[in-house]
């Protein structure tokens, strides 16, 4: 799979994910016409539907803006040639650069399992401009191109713990990602399909009882000496303060 088609597929995937995440409220809004605001006469809503907690799961849906650095040392890189079937596989350190970077967005959705423990999944895309030292694959010279030449996707699962601190909260989570991406160049390019295990820390500010703005950072557990991820996010929560405002 080459860069363009992969990116297209990723955008489609993210769109489908977003559509799925947003489909139920939209469907409800379209499919049910409310006829009254009086209890017992309402068709679409029930008493307490706007404010009662009972039975309401603790779910969150968020959008992250992320800048990621993918360290290349120790990672397997596949080089491909556009005009043929030639490929080569080698260690990323041979590319002559320390890391590839991408900037992009990710949608994530999750819920609390019990107490402060939550789990979720995420799907996103990343773009970037990266360079690598020119090299040959079967007599074809590969050189990196200018402009936005990097496209990839992010599939992730996460498990974390939230510490409520009033209007702030601190989160520590483990993020397991599969991050296939390619850097295209003249005559071909290079692709990576790395798995990343990333411990993350995040600081949330509750803008409203149902909305958080967060700053987060993560370190690739397999490359702890390299910068990995930094980002901001905005998240909607079904329960006020995720059900807990303070530790006590």
């Amino acid at each position, binding site marked *: 799979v080459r860069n363009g088609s992969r990116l297209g597929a990723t955008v489609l995937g993210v769109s489908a994910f977003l559509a799925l995440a947003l489909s139920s409220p939209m469907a409800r809004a379209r499919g049910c016409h409310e006829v009254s605001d*009086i209890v017992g006469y309402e068709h679409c809503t029930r008493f307490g539907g706007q404010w009662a907690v009972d039975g309401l799961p603790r779910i969150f849906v968020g959008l992250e803006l992320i800048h990621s650095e993918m360290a290349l040392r120790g990672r397997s890189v596949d080089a491909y040639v556009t005009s043929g079937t030639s490929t080569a596989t080698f260690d990323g350190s041979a590319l002559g650069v320390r890391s590839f970077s991408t900037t992009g967005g990710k949608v994530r959705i999750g819920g609390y399992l019990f107490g402060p423990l939550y789990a979720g999944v995420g799907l996103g895309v990343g773009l970037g401009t990266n360079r690598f030292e020119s090299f040959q694959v079967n007599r074809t010279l590969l050189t990196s191109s200018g402009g936005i030449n990097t496209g990839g996707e992010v599939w992730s699962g996460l498990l974390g713990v939230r510490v409520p601190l009033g209007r702030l909260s601190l989160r520590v989570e483990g993020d397991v990602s599969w991050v296939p991406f390619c850097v295209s160049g003249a005559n071909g390019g290079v692709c990576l399909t790395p798995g990343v295990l990333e411990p993350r820390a995040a600081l949330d500010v509750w803008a409203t009882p149902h909305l958080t*703005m967060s700053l987060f950072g993560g370190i690739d557990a397999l490359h702890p000496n390299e910068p990995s991820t930094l980002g901001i996010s905005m998240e909607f929560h079904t329960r006020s303060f995720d059900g807990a405002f303070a530790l006590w």
Partner: protein
Amino acid sequence: MDHGLLWWVLMDRSRAWGFALAWSMAVVLPACPGVAATPWDHWPDERVRAVRRLGCAELGFAVGRDSRIPDRSLLLDLGVRNHCVRPAPFDANALQFVGYDANRGTSCPLTIYDPRDEIRPTQIDAENESVERIRLDPPGGSLATITSVCVDTSRVSPEAAQAAPAPVCVEVSP
């Protein structure tokens, strides 16, 4: 660690400014009026004038007539608000309503119309609020002469039971 995240951010001026701006927005935005803090925009409105604070919960009441319900029934606007950052228990079924005529000579207990058994003991979400509209029915006869309704709120929650509040009385609006 030879290169930390802080170094990575600071090594590029535009990246550093970008993140600083984004994070400042995240912190400053919640402080802007109308953006953060709980807006309390559902009530009290002009309908819900009589309010009673019961610990974390605050209830507001207004009673009137409405062409969408039977003539003999009344329509209650019940404002529900939780001032605390934790859920507050609330049982609307424990509200007790009594209607009175103009000179308070005649009284009549009123019951909540709840054909689907929706109203159950629940908890008001933290810093949340809403208004529910509920039909009140007399056990029999007409309420045409009823001009005010008093509400006993003392049993809606453990906090209310402790506070033992006096009944809230509201005039029936036309």
